[in-house]
């Protein structure tokens, strides 16, 4: 039966870009289909930029940006956003830190005011710092220390794969480093990285471009101009030999393993990078994918499986160096070596024999659904476009992703699979130490 290929649809979200005199870059993407807006401010600083001896500082600083600012008392930011019917958050990534709100559209000016105010300067006080160190420690306990597989593999695999501090260290931070952080450190970090020239503001949803532009000028126009710092070179050479470690997780009941391979530079070699994004899905997306069929169903050697780009699952918002990851949880007593060997075998088979009829097309159709679904949320568009502007100067790429993913060829996927050799792999095994 010949395979009919689903046509990959596209979105046509309009994109307006401009730069204020102080260097702040702005992206507007109006869409009036619902009376809501997304507002995102992204600063070009993340986990990789934090200084040695200050692990976790980029994230701790993100917390401090919510503790009041020039014209806002502590707690005011939260109250003003939520009192306008909105939600907010922030998150710290390897290469950037974002701050964002989703709101009914009548709160546009309020959101701009709030973001501009903290861009001028957060209230960095000893009391707020100590309070947020405590909060962050509880966050780490919830997400890492008090649960099985905490930090696996996003915190545990980078130190196996990388040698330099920026790429290898724990981005949540050690309690010692967090407790040593000072207000002066925070002020220094702000001065250096939270510059207007180092930020992108994106607004999406139910806005009028002319009106929004005027409001942005009004609120951000007088944020003091400071240039972006030069971004350090974080590159590292590819692995020359396989790396493999293991550790015991006291709380984990089952063995687990994750392997990672370096991939082409997502920004400077996007065409070379995209086939890896598709490959990860060919291998692991759903019951009809290669590794699920083989490892879960046929061999029953793993019980759950995932494959994705980027340690934080961030295919289109991370810079080099980054990786393709495969991770698996095994049944009790499972053999990690055998699982890794089978993965190698399947990658080999893919590289050698190619894909089956329709395998690539159906994977691409499914990827289109995932990509489109992410853009339906008004905030998703603001966040993604802000980062695409910051890292590539190309926010409109968001509209193109389903099509570009759909244009990846079988040859490219095979070639990508052929590079995932054991000698280029870094892997880490979780040895279950859980009682039971």
């Amino acid at each position: 039966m010949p395979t009919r290929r689903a046509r990959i649809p596209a979105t046509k979200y309009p994109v307006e870009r401009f730069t204020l005199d102080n260097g702040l870059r702005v992206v507007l993407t109006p869409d009036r289909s619902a009376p809501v807006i997304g507002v995102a401010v992204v600063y070009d600083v993340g986990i990789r930029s934090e200084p040695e001896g200050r692990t976790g500082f980029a994230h701790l600083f993100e917390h401090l940006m919510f503790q009041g600012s020039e014209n806002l008392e502590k707690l005011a930011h939260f109250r003003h956003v939520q009192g306008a019917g909105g939600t907010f958050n922030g998150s710290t990534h390897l290469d950037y830190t974002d701050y964002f709100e989703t709101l009914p559209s009548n709160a546009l000016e309020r959101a701009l005011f709030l973001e501009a105010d903290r861009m001028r300067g957060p209230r960095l006080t000893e009391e707020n710092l100590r309070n947020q160190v405590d909060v962050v420690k509880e966050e780490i306990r919830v997400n890492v220390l008090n649960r099985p597989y905490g930090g696996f593999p996003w915190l545990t695999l980078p130190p196996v794969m990388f040698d330099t501090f920026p790429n290898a260290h724990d981005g949540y931070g050690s309690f010692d480093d967090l407790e040593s952080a000072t207000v002066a450190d925070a002020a220094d970090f702000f001065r250096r990285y939270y510059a207007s020239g180092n930020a992108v503001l994106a607004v999406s949803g139910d806005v009028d471009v002319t009106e929004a532009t005027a409001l942005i000028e009004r609120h951000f126009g007088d944020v003091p101009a400071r240039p972006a710092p030069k971004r350090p070179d974080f590159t590292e050479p590819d692995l020359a030999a396989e790396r493999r470690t293991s550790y015991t997780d006291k709380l984990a009941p089952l063995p687990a393993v994750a392997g990672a391979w370096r991939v082409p530079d997502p920004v400077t070699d996007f065409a070379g990078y995209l086939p890896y994004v598709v490959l990860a899905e060919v291998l692991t997306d759903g019951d009809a994918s290669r590794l699920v069929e083989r490892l879960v169903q046929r061999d029953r050697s793993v019980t759950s499986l995932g494959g994705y780009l980027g340690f934080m699952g961030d295919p289109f918002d991370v810079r080099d160096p980054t990786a393709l990851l495969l991770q698996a949880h095994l049944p009790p007593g499972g053999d990690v070596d055998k699982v890794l060997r089978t993965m190698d075998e399947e990658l080999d088979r893919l590289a050698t024999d190619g894909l089956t009829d329709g395998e690539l097309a159906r994977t691409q159709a499914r990827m289109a659904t995932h990509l489109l679904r992410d853009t339906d949320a008004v905030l998703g568009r603001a966040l993604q476009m802000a980062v695409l502007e910051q890292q590539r100067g190309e926010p409109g790429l968001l509209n193109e992703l389903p099509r570009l993913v759909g244009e990846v060829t079988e040859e490219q996927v095979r070639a990508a699979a052929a590079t995932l050799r054991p000698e280029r792999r870094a892997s880490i095994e979780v040895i279950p130490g859980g009682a039971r």
Partner: protein
Amino acid sequence: MRAPQSRTKKGKVTATAQAGPRSLPPLGPTRKLKLPKQGERTLGNGLTVIAVRRPAVPLVELRLWMPFGRAPLARGAMLAQTILSGTQTHSATQVAAELQKVGGGLSAGVDPDRLMLSGAGLVTGLDRMLEILADVLTGATYPPDWVGTERDRLIDRIQVAQSQPAHLARTALLKRIYGKHPYAVQTPEPEQLRSVRPGVLRTLHAQRVHPADAVLVLVGDVQPERALDAAEQALSGWNGTGHTADLPPAPPLQPGPLLLVDRPGSVQSSLRIALPAVPRTHPDHAALQLANLIFGGYFSSRWVENIREDKGYTYGPHSLVEHSVAGSVLVAAAEVATEVTGPALLETTYELGRLASLPVRADELEQARQYALGTLQLGMSTQAGLASLTSAYAGNGLRLDFLAEHAARLAKATVTDVAEAAARYLAPARAVTVVLGDAERIAPQLAALTPVVTEPVQP
């Protein structure tokens, strides 16, 4: 100390000077809640289909809600785990591949109220997704090899869940709240799962997977009438003469000593507090929702501002009114540092007691009201959000137009209404409290505040 040392003087000079503090811009006029275009049809086989138009992206969301109350726990869990494992005409892999071809996917989930099939795909593939859905509903075969594999996977997954404090705390709380009610135990034991055979699953499917009282929701870039036609075309042949089963009403909460569940070595304590609540349609519901927001239902609540932003005891405390078919309950949850477990409980009881005893401030109520109304708009602004909301409402006998009614009640609730609701539902004297943590370290802290009963952790 104010320390805006980060503000460069130089930058200040080049900026447009603005004298004095800047003031918060007012909000623009509120947009009225506007319901999307929708259609509804009941098919000859009893299936209700609701189609809602939101054309933003060329996708369609699908939710099929089937009443599943009183289904045996282990069999029900296994049915959800294996319903997509193959049909008369397609293997499991083929089902997944056929769905993928149209950008689609389906997954199954179960809880004590319902069995749910949900998914999303390219809107051009709607007919095909419905066809495959019908194939699964009418012809799932539960092949023995797949059932065996999926049983082992489910057991593994449950074992992982049972190593997570949040799951263990939830399990203990449900048992404590619901006693002998079917809601009391929601996770099957591995031993129970091991005895579930394919034949039993086929029987359960025949008994309980049928269209009467089920609701299919389709949301997306569709014309509602067209989508209803497509559903009728695909699903008219789905029949079944099985039975439904009504759940008994959930029992009222029985306050008593704090239940301390011992998890030795835990570096945090999982604090869970259950309080009475009412269903969405109850006259007190809007006021209760607002009282809950003011207590701990959003970030700008008294509880979060107290135990996180002031004391630093915890990262993400939250409280929520949970609605189920057989009853509603308010649950407040926080993971707190082991050494401050007692103090965290003290502050929690204080905030509940304060809310139940003293009227809220008008500005506090206004802020909570705006949040409740605004987040209604946000929740409706995506296809996935609309689909889940429509389905959750429909499963409880409501339609989207209830949103407007609820919004009107939120808008009208007064300080007195909220005070009365708080006194009735949020009084600490009515709380059922469970704490999971290292008993050796936290029992003395808790016992200083309230009577405590300790038991070992049970998965």
